[in-house]
């Protein structure tokens, strides 16, 4: 009786293992195909320039210097001395995605988030990040910057894609 019970459980584990294995192989194939294509896209240069431009603009104080959602011409979230200003960050997070793209002077898609030195995500207005998430683009450019947020130096990570 005991032997029979063990044998039945063993069959369930085996089927489960096979399903998982198949799925992992499929996932791995998709992963590798996507990764290999990253550097081959013709849009890489343009994306790099855009990512650089967006991150530099975010690290600025914006225009006007004390901008609000109603008068913003260019979005920047710092005091121009690398220190993120909470009001600008919240305004940025609460603007529509299309408006932020316009004020960042880009036609590309982006996603920005902050994380502390241990890699934990810092919520912005209760959100994981600002911008468009979950894209399927094959070419994504990442830029990392180091602003001050509240009491420490943090990572600001900007992803840009077509």
């Amino acid at each position, binding site marked *: 009786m005991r032997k029979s019970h063990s044998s039945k459980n063993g069959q369930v584990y085996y089927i489960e293992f096979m399903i998982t294995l198949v799925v992992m192989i499929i996932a791995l194939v998709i992963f590798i195909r996507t*990764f290999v294509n990253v550097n081959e896209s013709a849009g890489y240069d343009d994306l790099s320039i855009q*990512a650089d431009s967006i991150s530099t603009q975010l690290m600025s104080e914006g225009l006007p210097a004390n901008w609000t959602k109603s008068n913003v011409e260019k979005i920047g979230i710092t005091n121009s001395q690398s220190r993120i200003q909470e009001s600008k960050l919240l305004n940025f997070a609460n603007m529509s995605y299309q408006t932020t793209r316009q004020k960042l002077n880009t036609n590309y898609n982006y996603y920005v988030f902050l994380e502390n030195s241990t890699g934990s995500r810092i919520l912005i207005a209760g959100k994981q990040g600002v911008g468009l998430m979950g894209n399927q683009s094959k070419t994504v450019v990442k830029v*990392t910057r180091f602003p001050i947020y509240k009491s420490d130096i943090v990572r600001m990570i900007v992803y840009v894609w077509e």
Partner: protein
Amino acid sequence: MSGSKGIFFSIDAMFAILLLLAAAFAIPSFLATEKPVADLHHQAQDFIASLSELKVYETNNTYVKLLISQGKITNQNNTILQQIGEFWAAGQMQYAANLTKAFSNNLLPSNQGFGLYINSQKIYEKTLSDLSTIASAPKLFSGIMANRSSTGFIGRAIIKSAKKNTNVIVKGDVVSSSVRKPSAANNGNMVNVTYFANLPTNATIVDAYWFIESSWTDNHFKAWVNNEFIPGSPASGSKLLTDLKTYFHSGRNIATALFWFGSGGYEGGDDGASHIVVNYTTNQLNTLDLNTTKKYLYDVISECSVMYKKPIFVVGNLSSFNISLHVIAPKVTLGYIVDGVFKNISTKNVVSNKVGWTDAEIKAVMNANGVQYSQLSNKYMWFTFELDTYHNRELVGAQRRIYSDSYVDVKTDFNLAFEYSYVDITAIIKPYTYSVLDTGQFYRNVEWRYWAPNASVPLLIDSQIAWKYVTSTNPNQKVRVNQYTLYSHPPQPLIPELARFGYGGNYTKINATNRYTLNFTSGYSVNPFNSLVSYTFLIKGAVPYGTTFDTKQQAIADAMKRLNLSLGLYFKEAIIGNETYSVGGVPYMWGPAIVEARIWQ
């Protein structure tokens, strides 16, 4: 019981499937590739800027809290960078290193190296063995030494910011591609050339202009800066676009020119005389990148074969060339030009959009042609890149492109280590005299004059020349600096495209007027107004505390006088800060010193 277990395991399996599917679709979307040089440069600048801004009292860093509790940090109003500097000035190197490590190690990815240096002295280094890219950000800083005091009034002065005359100069390379059918008609090709102008992130732009000169005088062209169309740009042949201040911004700028068929000229593109000049102010006093070994190409897009000529000024003694191209083309032919003489190196097929030449391949051909690397020190030579078999008249076909991450890596023994408080300046030199008119504004004799201030270190004279050569003639060419003749044809070969000429600082006389002259005979002439000559040098930007005076005003006057003597004329628009300290309990000041963050991977 066993049946229930089976149900749970199946649900587990389904969860596993969902998670893996999510990973398969979500993770690749964020597989990112980085532009190493620009990104690392920003990171180094950010790191210095943030350490200069974050105060000791406000940080939650546990190592800082520990040092405060141990009494090692006494002034919580210091910035983190000032505190590192204070430890350095007091000889407490271990605390300086640990404090730097506390703010850098977790922040930077494990695949990046990092170093912090004060006056070139290593404070902390996280090393990696395989280095491919390095970026650095220097900054002038100073602070108050704990537990030290002085007597009397002493003064010091330091340049806080300066109007650096045309500090960013982007010089066009020679780019050409057919815009005409083998018959006389327009082939419809548009030759797109994109240039890059990198400014410090805290730059305030004062003025900007862009001179465009096309390959053929009848070419039409238009221009954009940072994707904004320049309304005055539709033109033919050449045009000076002025008042472009509002089109540029701090950081990386892109400028695109589009060339197409005019009235019969074969090729569209840049004749190598085009240039962008951005005049700006910044408190980042060291902005020179002479140590950058990789000379990047500009982005070129065309639907015909492309000829790209890249001028290379070899600073110091050459040790190696390595070339890496990222292109769209079936094959590329590499050649070089030394003293006006072209030689082919080899043709290679492009594989996965990449093609390159090693130093051994290049050196072997040069040596076989009688050119030794030692002949190339402190002068211009050219590499030529022919995408596909080049024809100056052809029908449009597949797109050919050179990406801007293509480069020539030039390794020399030159290493510019900024000495204590030296500031780099790049100044435009206007033509002083011109004579013997050829045609239009082209003259056979042109002279530029420049003054080398006292206490300065001359580095480089670089000239981009708007030239005109009457083919099939054999004019004399002579280039002189003061009493030295740097080039003379004959006996040296004729240089048909004298688009660049440069020389090192050793020909420049300090505290004197220097003369740079070009002289030609019939068949060759230059346009001094469309040529661009720049002088790059180092100048001391600070004076330390001097003699003790009875009053604060005397101490300031003394410091300002000493600094003005050092700065000379180039810094008349500089903002100069001064500080004085009086007797009794006034802390001893350390610095100013140069702190530099370097990041590599």
